[in-house]
């Protein structure tokens, strides 16, 4: 305590509070060590590692194709992009180019997965801010997407749906029609969510000006995905380093202007609409042909290092693989998860704001702990 004339009228102490890892609103097992001055956050420090499963180390012990199911478990609401990222990186390493049909099908799966992931984000984000109803609406549509996945590959969450060199299965009969039906119906549902939130006064007051991060800071911290685009930086891996056949479809990259939670919300909502646009084009252009490139049964890598990345719903998901001559396993595989990098903006975004804002910020960063801890 201070002495002398500066001593305040009351003895004021900062309250230290450990937030999580079993807190209902931390999206998994995130722990935040916070110092609070009343309701105001003086300092928030994320502590991670509660979901560490040693995935990167595990990769070193298994063959390349056997790694793919483990990528499912990184960002578990977003398995298709994890598969896609790993496969693309491996194809880069092995010099395989996949047939166009496989590429288009991958894009369809990836965009459906993006919708599913954004729906989970919207649901949890809204619940964190106190609006419980959007949760049930979004999960209704997400279920339809999961039904499509289930029909295609048998799994709903951990899809394991891509192979190095293409795809494991051809589409079941009538799947494309059902997918098209969903794609046609979905924009109306986006309007539905927007009716509940976009112009809602309370929603706006809770999100506008909350969790501001400047474009410079966002770039310096390496943020990617909607947190970066919400700050007005047009950066989308699908545009700047197109993979699969993203260079053959038209879509816009929505960006925000105010760098706050509300803009990131708008960016993600618009991304859903753009995903629908991509899906429409993919369904239209989907060529006939094989779904697997000619790849040897046992993959043997050349010596080298390779980095490949995809635009997952959360940001840039990259894989860095070091391979040895004629190796069947990665010598080292490092995953660059978007959530992990995005999370480091949290302390700066919440500093000086209220506890309730932290919920909005955690929601807007859209973190998944499976990916952060690996």
């Amino acid at each position, binding site marked *: 305590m201070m002495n002398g004339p500066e001593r305040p009228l009351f003895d004021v102490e900062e309250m230290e509070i450990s937030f999580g890892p079993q807190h209902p609103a931390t999206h998994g097992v995130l722990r935040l060590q916070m110092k609070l001055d009343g309701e105001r956050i003086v300092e928030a420090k994320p502590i991670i590692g509660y979901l560490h499963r040693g995935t990167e180390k595990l990769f070193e012990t298994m063959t390349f194709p056997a790694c793919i199911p483990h990528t499912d478990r990184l960002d578990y609401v977003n398995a298709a992009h994890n598969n896609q990222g790993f496969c693309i990186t491996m194809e880069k390493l092995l010099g395989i180019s996949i047939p166009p049909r496989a590429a288009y099908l991958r894009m369809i799966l990836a965009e459906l997965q993006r919708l599913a992931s954004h729906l989970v984000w919207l649901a949890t984000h809204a619940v964190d801010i106190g609006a*419980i109803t959007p949760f049930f609406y979004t999960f209704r549509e997400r279920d339809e997407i999961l039904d499509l996945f289930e029909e295609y590959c048998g799994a709903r969450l951990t899809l394991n749906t891509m192979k190095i060199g293409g795809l494991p299965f051809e589409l079941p009969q009538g799947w494309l029609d059902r997918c098209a039906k969903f794609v046609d119906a979905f924009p109306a549902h986006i309007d539905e969510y927007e009716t509940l939130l976009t112009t809602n006064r309370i929603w706006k007051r*809770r999100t506008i000006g909350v969790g501001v991060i400047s474009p410079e800071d966002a770039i310096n911290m390496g943020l990617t995905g909607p947190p970066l685009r919400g700050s007005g930086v047009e950066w989308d891996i699908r545009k700047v380093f197109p993979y699969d056949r993203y260079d053959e479809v038209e879509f816009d990259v929505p960006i925000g202007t105010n760098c706050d939670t509300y803009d990131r919300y708008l960016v993600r909502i618009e991304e859903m609409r753009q995903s629908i646009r991509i899906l429409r084009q993919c369904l239209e252009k989907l060529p006939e042909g094989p779904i697997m490139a000619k790849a040897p049964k046992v993959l043997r890598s050349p010596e080298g290092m390779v980095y490949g990345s995809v635009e997952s719903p959360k940001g840039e998901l990259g894989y860095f693989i070091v391979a040895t001559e004629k190796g069947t396993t990665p010598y080292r595989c490092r995953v660059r998860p978007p959530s992990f990098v995005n999370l480091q903006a949290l302390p700066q975004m919440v500093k000086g704001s209220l506890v309730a*804002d932290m919920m909005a910020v955690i929601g807007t960063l859209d973190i998944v702990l499976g990916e952060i801890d690996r």
Partner: protein
Amino acid sequence: MPEPILQLLLIPLIKIVVLLVVVLLIVAYLTYAERKILAYMQVRLGPNRVGPKGWLQPVADGLKLFVKEDLVPGGAEKLVFMIAPAIVMVPALVMFAVIPFGEPFQIAGMTVTPYLADINIALLFILGVSSLGVFGIILGGWSSNNKFSLMGGLRSAAQMVSYEIPMGFAVASAVLMAGTLSMVGIVEAQRAAHIWFFLPGILGFGIYWVCGVAETNRNPFDLPEAEAELVAGFHTEYSGMKFALFYLAEYANMMIVSAMAVVLFCGGWLPPFPNLLAGLWALPVLAWIPGAFWFLAKMSFFLFCYIWFRGTFPRYRFDQLMNVGWKWLFPLSLANVMLVALGVLLLKG
């Protein structure tokens, strides 16, 4: 049996028992209604396993909470922790004593009043008793020895204190129009005026209702128990019957706020449209239906609104809540009181 004993002891006792049973039953089924209505708003089915259409769900819930282990956290202030739920629950029930559910009627030559007491300071009584409930919440939050509970309790205290003032002023506007503090008197005044007070006092009615929702800590003002931030707020550490008491008290308070809205602004037990339908065929029919029905119907509407809000709105932030209370509702309610006073002065001379 001598008359005074019957009048002073037996009938009130019967009334108390009936009132408690009815209120607790309504409260129990209010939780069921909330879950069911919310479910239909959210494309779900709601409880449908226990009994036909889940009607026995409240019983099952009650039973579960009753036989649940009663945990007291290690660092808790035991005595305070124990009595806090009672401090919340008792005022919530006591307030029902002055709520008039209908008009007096005759049974076997005796006049029975469907309310426990018609005291001339009923409104003051309600306002006074209702502010006692906040002590239970603060004490419960503090005694749990949990930082989340403490913050929930503090938020709740700040919220209830700041919303009580505009609420008091809004109530005062109804009192000005009625010229009495007695609940029965206010309803009778609306009968005499041939108009429900929410029409001339629409501003006061709006302020009252917003404050009422805030007073009961319900969405969009449910900060004290904002689960996303504070887990469950002041009752995080409570379990079993103690938790049930907090829970029941919340719903009982919702009923009180709704009942007050009905009495003060919506004509109590009077059938609808006393002046518009006068002379029309509907009036005698509507008047024939017992007043208690109208009272409960109007109260249900307000309770439905509570649930509706919960299904629609996000939650305010703490500072925004204070802003709404102090910067908007407080001056507005003051202006409203002056306006109404002026109106009453001009009209009644």
